[in-house]
């Protein structure tokens, strides 16, 4: 059954929404992830029952021994009595060990699945999602929040259910031993109920404050660590510490109520247990015949009362754990509910993917009247652009003219707002993402390398044989760069490729693209300047890459521009001129003026 999601709350409000210790809606959703491991849980239930049986048999045995052996002077049986008792203990602990391991295994496997589910979900989101949600927050969901959710299993908060079962069984046993004494014990229940209710309310109130202030404190710290340069340049370290401590103090004080409620609950439940014991002795004295059986019953009750009250006493600690876990799961599910999927169905092949769907006469890439804006800022205002098959088109324009955005819309990292974008005559929205991104390979100026080997970084998950890899490396000239640093394709790449220079990274990107052998190449030429030798390597690499391929290049180098078949000049989100180099020079517009300054500089 689908449960209607509550209206999404934002900002401060969202943090004030207090996760209940038991939120049925969340638990039901969580159950879906536990489901695949239900066989572990079934085994767990079995061993919990065994555990419980051994546990609760102990007081009964003590009672029996007292009644039948000790108080009746039966000396010979005592060694056997002690041995049986030991057996009960060992049995219980073996069962405890097994059931705890099973529960942990179920928990850890569920958390693993949930982690993967979040990862998959996040990776399937469109690019705009990542502009909005900070990386740090997504990381927290997959690490810390999962860990605190796991505390349900690790700290045994799930055993609240077991404790309840245990309480019921204890009551049944007590009733079977002596109805009147049981009722006397149960008479303390209303008092316990009031106490638990008081503690629950106090903690709820306390947790609300704690949660808001903890979030405030962490947000403050995060912001200041992130902006440390500004903090220091403004000489604000001391002020920052003072302000941090204001929130820090608020956070500390938010615990006052919780600490008080927790202490009261713990101590009073314990005391009520003792008092119940005393009352039983007192009542027995007034109403029962003094004999061995009576004394044994009293002892048995003392033991059962002890076992009955301990779980209740620890309820508040478990409540805190549950609260934290539920809050974490709420955040996780909120993320899973924020669904802004990448357009189309990435894995599914569409009809438009088939070679027959493309028209041979259509240009490889065509944009018509494309509009796009980031938020309220218009970036593209009706862009028209055609890249004929087999040709090279260079786009030039100032920073912010919208060149890079054209690429992002073409590969559907972002969705156009108006207009049409076609590849091989087919609307990019009709192609599956998989097919679209197979046809077009983008070489951006900011090359991302992953930690691992260089070969992994070039192959990017595809299985090429070594010869092909080395061939690509050689053709783009990366081999010469590698020789310079005395490395080969098995060289280790540090995180974010920190041990590779900008020039080397460019060459790696070329090798990647060459291996993928795309029909359409989109090249965002690097503006970063490297040493002359690397510059030469890159220029040669670009030429090899572009050879015989439909290429759309965002050009920053005069040589690239001059060698292209068509030059498109963009300004303020529009195409203002296009033509060949000679045509544009003759036209005497923006490009011509540009060209003039080039020659003067030469």
């Amino acid at each position, binding site marked *: 059954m689908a449960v209607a999601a509550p209206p999404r709350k934002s900002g401060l409000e969202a943090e004030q929404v207090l996760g209940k210790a038991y939120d049925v809606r969340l638990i039901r959703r969580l159950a879906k992830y536990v489901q695949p491991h239900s066989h572990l849980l079934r085994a767990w239930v079995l061993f919990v029952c065994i555990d419980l049986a051994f546990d609760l048999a102990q007081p009964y045995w003590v009672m029996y021994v007292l009644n039948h052996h000790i108080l009746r002077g039966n000396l010979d049986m005592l060694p056997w009595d*002690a041995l049986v008792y030991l057996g009960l203990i060992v049995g219980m*602990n073996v069962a405890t060990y097994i059931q705890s391991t099973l529960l942990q295994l179920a928990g850890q496997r569920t958390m693993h699945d949930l982690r993967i589910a979040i990862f998959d979900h996040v990776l399937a989101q469109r690019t705009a999602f990542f502009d909005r949600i900070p990386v740090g927050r997504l990381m927290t969901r997959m690490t810390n929040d999962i860990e605190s959710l796991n505390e349900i299993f690790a700290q045994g908060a799930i055993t609240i259910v077991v404790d309840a079962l245990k309480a019921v069984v204890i009551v049944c046993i007590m009733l079977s031993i002596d109805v009147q004494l049981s009722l006397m014990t149960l008479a303390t229940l209303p008092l316990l109920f009031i106490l638990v209710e008081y503690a629950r309310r106090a903690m709820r109130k306390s947790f609300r404050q704690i949660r808001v202030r903890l979030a*405030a404190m962490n947000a403050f710290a995060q912001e200041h660590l992130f902006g440390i340069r500004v903090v220091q340049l403004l000489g604000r370290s001391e002020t920052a510490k003072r302000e941090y401590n204001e929130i820090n103090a608020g956070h500390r004080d938010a615990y006052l109520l919780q600490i008080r409620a927790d*202490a009261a609950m713990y101590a009073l439940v314990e005391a009520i247990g003792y008092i119940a014991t005393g009352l039983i002795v007192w009542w027995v004295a007034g109403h029962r015949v003094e004999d061995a059986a009576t004394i044994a019953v009293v002892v048995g009750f003392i033991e059962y009362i002890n076992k009955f009250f301990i779980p209740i006493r620890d309820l508040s600690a478990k409540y805190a754990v549950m609260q934290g876990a539920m809050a974490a799961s709420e955040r996780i599910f909120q993320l899973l509910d924020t669904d802004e999927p990448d357009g189309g169905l990435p894995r599914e092949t569409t009809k438009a993917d088939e070679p027959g769907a493309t028209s041979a006469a259509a240009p490889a890439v065509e944009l018509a009247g494309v509009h796009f804006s980031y938020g309220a800022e218009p970036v593209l205002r009706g862009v028209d652009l055609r890249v004929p098959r087999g040709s090279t088109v260079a786009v030039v324009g100032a920073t912010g003219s919208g060149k890079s955005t054209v690429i992002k819309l073409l590969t559907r990292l972002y969705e156009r707002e108006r207009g049409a974008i076609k590849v091989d005559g087919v609307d990019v929205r009709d192609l599956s993402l998989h097919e679209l991104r197979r046809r077009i390979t983008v070489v951006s100026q900011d090359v991302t390398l992953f930690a691992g080997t260089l070969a992994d970084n070039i192959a990017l998950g595809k299985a090429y044989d070594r010869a092909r890899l080395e061939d690509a490396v050689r053709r783009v000239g990366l081999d010469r760069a590698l020789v310079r640093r005395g490395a080969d394709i098995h060289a280790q790449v540090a995180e974010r490729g920190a041990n590779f220079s900008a020039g080397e990274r460019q060459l790696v990107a070329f090798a990647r693209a060459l291996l993928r052998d795309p029909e359409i190449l989109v090249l965002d030429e690097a503006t970063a300047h490297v040493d002359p030798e690397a510059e030469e390597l890159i220029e040669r690499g670009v030429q090899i890459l572009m050879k015989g391929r439909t290429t759309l290049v965002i050009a920053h180098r005069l040589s690239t521009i001059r060698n292209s078949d068509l030059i498109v000049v963009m300004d303020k989100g529009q195409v203002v001129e296009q033509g060949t180099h000679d045509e544009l020079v003759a036209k005497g517009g923006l490009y011509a003026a540009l060209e003039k300054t080039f020659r003067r500089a030469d």
Partner: protein
Amino acid sequence: MASQSSLAYLRPYRRILLAGVVLLLATNLCYLGVAQYLRHSVDLLRAGRTNEIGSSVALLVMFAVATAITRILSRVWIFNAARAAEYDLRSDLFGHMMTMSPAYYRDHPTGDVMSRLTNDVQTVRAMWGAGLVHLANSVTAFATVMTYMLLLDPVVALLAIIPYPLIFFVGQALSMRVYRTTREVQAELGSLSAHIQEDLGAIQVIKTYGLEDVRREGFLEGSKRLLDKNMAAAKVRIQLGPILNTLAPMGVAILILVGGRAVIHGDISVGAYVAYSALLSRLVWPTLTLGFMLALVQRGRASWARLVQLQETKSDIVEGSGAALPDSDVPAAIEVKHLTIKIGERPLLDDVSFVLPPGSITAVVGRTGSGKTTLVEALCRLIEVPPKTIFIDGRDVTDVPLASLRDALGYAPQEAFLFSTTIADNIAMGYGGGTAIPAARRAELERAGAAAHAPDLSNEPQVNEAAKAAGLARDIAMMPEGLATVVGERGITLSGGQRQRVALARALASARRFLVLDDSLSSVDAETEKVILANLRNVMTGRTAVLISHRVAAIKDADQILVLDQGKIVERGTHDELIESGGVYSELYRTQLDTELEIVREAG
């Protein structure tokens, strides 16, 4: 926190902690009262003296109530002291982190520092609070119960407590394994975080190259490794309970054997047997928490080690020991002499020397990676510089206290960083005003009496002037709340250009004598930039200024232009002089198309 022991943080609260421990002892003594009158009542019952039981039970109840009262107080005191010590620890750590140089944060991800500030501090606090409560409770429970049992009957008592020393040693051995496995889990969690960070940072590449499956594979492996480490740690933790729990009730088994015999022989009363049984089962819980506490302490130790690591890393920027700069508004005179800065063997700046005359405007140009940003960071001492290389008013900057130096200068970086508070607050921070606590937070804290009231700064003349000079007047007029508009995640989203201008306004409010603009108008469109620059001419009068820009419009009017290439100053002079000479500057011209288009458009 120079001390290696976390206990130093508890020192200020030692009186209240001691009182808490004493009360815990009292709790356990009161419990002996409960046990004593339980024994007495059962003996009375056994002897048939039922009319005396009433007063015995009444005493039992009294002692029970006393245990509750003492226990409540002890827990409240100890837990509150632990919270107070946590406050001190957080405060020290955060204060320390605010002094670390930006270089530190380049090598240490913010996420890692945050994780220590949050998770590790909490773990240490748990060690202090719950750890101390459990430790004190277990120790006093054992001490009192054993003393009582010994007094009652030494032989039975000694035999019944045989298992307990064993419990201690087994617990200790296991707790070492808890420590080790916990650290392994934390390390695995860290490497998984690194994987996630790498993927999320490269999301566009992953999408355009269709790498989802490959990266998922890597994540899956990492997550599986974490699962395995978690299970390994869990297994050690899980063993702890049953092992201790098997050892502890052995006492009861011995009691059945030895105590039962004693009752039959009439050596001890039935009441004593019942009391023993109650006392021994009461020791089960402290034994179990002993295991729990050992795990807590081991986790706490692992976290504490991570915090000490944080605290022991000192900033590489050494505080100047000389006198503060005199309080003045005269433009600063800056001189740089043979400045060389290296990372490893690679020089970022190579023997750079120049003079910034008071009140002059100097532009620094060069290719990406030529050392421009390093140069301005050195001027602001955001990175450490060798002594006697940079001078302000003739004084070595390494000798000037950092606060005094930074009081004199204003810096606007390319990546405009704003705090999630109002625009007015952000600007006022330039002159030491403003608050970084968001208004909604502050209101909540004010109600709780934790924070002082922060004034609305949107009518401050200093703020308004700076906003105007940074070309923000029109933007602010269009916002419903004007300067009181909240920016950042909880407020409105400013455009890149607007953010840069707010940061510029803050730098202007901050720059009393010296202003540094590090490509700080790159996202501002050309027209607006022109207006700002025209304005700045007026504003900058009375300040020495250095600016980095890729836009010729911004730099061509500078008094001098320094051209950096591979860390060296290769050319210097005015715009016209440098174009004339036809060197690197004019070549930058040729290759920097963006720049050209600006000029062309400006000309046309």
